[in-house]
């Protein structure tokens, strides 16, 4: 690993100041992506700004009808949170299936969405639920946040502080996990609020995306059978040694049907 200077600020403003003051400085959340990337020398920051010393960046709470999750909240804590289990069980279930238990003890929701790995799980939930991403300087709608592979609307040095989830009437996430990495080969989050249905797909393309045809079909009838005659275009999907794009397109539809079934009969 390339040498770097290590900083551990105790406030968001101090972290933002450090990131602004130093060239080639990156924030460190749980480190489950950044540290392996640095070990492979795919990243070589000169300054690491560790966000784990900032009080108040982690935890789960309700603000009116909105579930608020602090950016530094670790996956294992979201998965086991009684509040999340009661208010948004689909999100707790998703968090409990990211990586493995040791990864879930370190990885954070803010780190996951800021990294925007094309196969990460959280972006699907954030986009399908229409969450708001709160940063040190503004609030960004999920629809505007995820741009492309490892690219978000975050400006250089901008830090995610929390994610605000509106509560749906029904929701579920289903993924077909790569058995080695547990990343999604295809993961589909469906969320129904009133008559509106939002569906986000991860793992299948260069970044998480909303599946318009699936949303339209489910808005008319929120049943797995509503998707029987729908397919998605494989041409824009990823292909790698694990799955070609046609297989991913097929998996998306299977995961979508399973997610709808799960949303209809949770538990």
């Amino acid at each position, binding site marked *: 690993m390339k040498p770097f200077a290590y900083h551990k600020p105790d406030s968001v403003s101090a972290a933002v100041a450090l990131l602004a003051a130093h060239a080639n400085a990156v924030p460190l959340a749980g480190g489950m992506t950044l*540290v*392996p990337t640095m070990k492979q020398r795919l990243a070589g920051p000169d300054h690491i700004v560790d966000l784990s010393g900032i009080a108040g960046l982690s935890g789960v709470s309700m603000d009116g009808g909105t579930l608020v999750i602090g950016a530094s909240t670790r996956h294992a804590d979201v998965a086991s949170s009684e509040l999340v289990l009661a208010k948004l069980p689909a999100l707790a279930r998703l968090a409990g299936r990211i*990586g*493995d238990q040791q990864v879930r003890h370190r990885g954070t929701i803010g780190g996951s969405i800021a990294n925007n790995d094309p196969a990460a799980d959280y972006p699907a939930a954030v986009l399908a639920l229409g969450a708001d991403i709160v940063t040190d300087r503004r609030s960004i709608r999920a629809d505007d946040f995820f741009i492309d592979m490892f690219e978000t609307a975050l400006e250089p040095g901008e830090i995610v502080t929390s994610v605000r989830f509106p509560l749906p009437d029904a929701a579920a996430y289903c993924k077909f996990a790569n058995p080695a990495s*547990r990343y999604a080969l295809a993961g589909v989050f469906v969320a129904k609020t009133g008559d509106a249905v939002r569906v986000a797909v991860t793992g299948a393309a260069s970044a998480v995306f909303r599946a318009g045809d699936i949303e339209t079909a489910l808005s008319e009838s929120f049943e797995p059978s509503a998707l029987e005659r729908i397919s998605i275009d494989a041409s824009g999907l990823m292909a790698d040694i694990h799955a070609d794009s046609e297989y991913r397109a097929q998996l998306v539809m299977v995961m979508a049907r399973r997610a709808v079934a799960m949303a209809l009969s949770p538990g």
Partner: protein
Amino acid sequence: MKISFVLNDRPTTVEVEPSMLLSEVIRETLSMTGTHVGCDTSQCGACVVHVNGKSVKSCTLLAPAVEGADIRTVEGLSGDTGPLHPMQQAFRDNHGLQCGFCTPGMLMAALDLVSHNPDPAESDIREWLEGNICRCTGYQNIVKSVIAGAAAMRQAS
């Protein structure tokens, strides 16, 4: 930079480079080689230790991040000459290891599970050990060992 933490109940201060990993500090700076490094890519779980009571992969943790933490490695399960920890004894009794390379990580991960789930079902164990790879046993005897170790720990408490 200097970092301080508690390692197996002993207050410890070491001089580290910020780019050092916890696994390097434990194995190379402190010469405690019970914690193994298999893949060094956070896949295999041989390097699992407890940080503040939770199992983590020490090959993917920067040393400065454990400042002030309470760390336990496999060496902290039983004294140098004391009897094996019930979970270690269960692995021995049930052939939960062959080459033994993955065992330190398996033990530390299993003990984290048992600490909040004293009577885990087989499915709980298999799910919890997803991040621990063993290339010898086929996992059957590891699962058997964890069940037996958990039972022994319940009896002892």
